[in-house]
């Protein structure tokens, strides 16, 4: 029988997010490949979800009444794996097997490799459709579980995302909350230079969605927005979470070059040092 961890102490949540960042740095350094900026930038959102928002059961990942968390931009999976391990889905030691032969932690998530992964992903634009399918079933069968979809900004270049957005509106999926990682970067540069997406909030509102904008590093705001989305019955909700790619590791922040590369040994050591300082700061804040 699952439930919600529902940690409400912000200091505790921020420390968990810090741990997740440290884990991601170690994982990516060990793997020698992977996507740093997005994974690090999503640590606060994944902390909010796994340690407060989601109804789930790490010891019984297939609990039928669990909330579904669909990750669309699969390349940020290190942060998901780190959140899952810290929540108790699997031993933390396994995190260092990321991207290695025989690992359950595939370079992009694979549904049948690791219990708790709802969908395989990698090719962008496919997650929201699957989340919509799940939400249609839940609504039709009057289930109480909700569907959360993590989507990226860059993947909105894929037409499929907009197809899914229209259908979610048609079926009035009040049980669907999409969280967009609005970090403004994609592989080839800034989103507004590669293919301008703005005005995103207006676009989604025009598509029939309820839109909330939050600071994607303010865990309280993220949790609050997720709670508010539950009160919107007749529309799906999009939470545009403004994030800083690489947040918490100053030499990574905002730089598009960190989208798709891992840290070197020196960079990893530096990043862990900075995160250690941040940990002390959070602890001292009391």
């Amino acid at each position, binding site marked *: 029988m699952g439930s919600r961890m529902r940690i409400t102490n912000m200091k505790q949540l921020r420390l968990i997010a810090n741990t997740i960042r440290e884990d991601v740095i170690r994982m990516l350094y060990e793997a020698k490949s992977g996507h740093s900026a997005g994974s690090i930038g999503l640590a606060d959102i994944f902390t909010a979800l796994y340690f407060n928002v989601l109804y789930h059961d790490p010891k019984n990942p297939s609990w039928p009444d669990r909330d579904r968390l669909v990750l669309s931009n699969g390349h940020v999976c290190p942060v998901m794996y780190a959140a899952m391990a810290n929540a108790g889905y699997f031993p933390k030691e396994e995190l260092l097997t990321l991207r290695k032969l025989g690992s359950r932690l595939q370079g992009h998530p694979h*549904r049948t490799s690791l219990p708790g992964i*709802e*969908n395989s992903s990698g090719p962008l634009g496919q997650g*929201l*459709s*699957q989340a919509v399918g*799940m939400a249609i*079933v839940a609504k039709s069968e009057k289930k109480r579980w909700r569907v959360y979809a993590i989507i990226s900004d860059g993947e909105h270049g894929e*037409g499929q995302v907009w197809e899914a957005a229209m*259908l979610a509106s048609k079926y009035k999926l009040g049980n669907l909350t999409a969280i967009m990682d609005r970090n403004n970067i994609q592989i080839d540069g800034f989103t507004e230079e590669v293919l301008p997406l703005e005005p995103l909030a207006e676009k989604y509102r025009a598509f029939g969605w309820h839109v909330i904008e939050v600071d994607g590093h303010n865990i309280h705001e993220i949790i609050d927005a997720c709670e508010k989305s539950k009160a919107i019955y007749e529309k799906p909700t999009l939470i545009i979470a403004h994030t800083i790619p690489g947040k918490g590791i100053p030499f990574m922040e905002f730089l598009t070059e960190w989208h798709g590369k891992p840290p070197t040994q020196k960079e990893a050591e530096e990043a862990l040092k900075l995160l250690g300082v941040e940990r002390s700061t959070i602890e001292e804040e009391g």
Partner: protein
Amino acid sequence: MLHNHITFPAKGSAASRDGFGKALVELGEKDPNVWVLTADVSESTRTHWFAEKFPKRFVQVGVAEQNLAGVAAGIAACGKKAFISAYGVFSPGRNWDQLRVSVCYNDVPVVFHGSHTGITVGPDGASHQALEDIAITRVLPNMVVMAPADMEEARKATIAAHGLGKPAYIRTCREKMPVFTTAETPFKIGEANLYREGADVVVVACGPMVYESLVAAEKLHSEGISCAVLDLHTIKPIDKKAIVEWAKKTGLVVAVEEHQVNGGMGSAVAEVLAEECPVPVRRHGIYDMFCESGSAFELLKKYKLDADGIASVVKESMHMKKR
């Protein structure tokens, strides 16, 4: 030998897409977990029969085949069995990436129904004639690929796909074609049906080409050529045993399909034989080209995919045995 299980010559005709639509209604009644989705082609792909009976388990996504596949994958991930239906050129034509990752890599039970396949879609022209769908689906892991021979076999293939609970592709046709298999004709995924024995050559066919090949074999018989006909309704997993058995017995294989010869059923047959029993193989179908508008039967004649055309291709292939 299964020729006792078929009606030859056929007494009636129907479109194989009707078999799919009928099966969905049967399945919908038996299993509350059956869901059906379409992309703005519910009537022409025969899902409207299901929609009328089970509106709560029917999803209309509009003209959006990528979303069609993705939504179905999400539904199937909730323990449902999803059937999605559109023209073959659009699904799996337009949503192959979604088929690959959201369906096959997830390994969720979504059955793709591609209707209006082959040149028999006719007057709509080359843009709408799915001639590549077998090639693009049979390369995918976890996938089952079927091209039933007639309306009755399409009904059985659909029911079998439901029982399988795996990703699958079922290819059907728009045009009314002879119905020659019966409720009693056996159907098992992965087991080809032999409808006619022969000693000189075996025609391996799928879809409406099976019946045309039976008629061709009858003509060839009167000209002294003994031609076996194998219905390879399942292209993946392929029935190696039956293919090898009849290749050995006859020494010459002619594969016939309403599909590009490159990568299609004939290629799959040639792959099996190259590795397990090298005998000459003639792949007959559409030869790396786009076709054109015309009635189904005019096109079958033009591209030598009617009985006369198949008989002529078999005859011109006979010399391959002597090499």
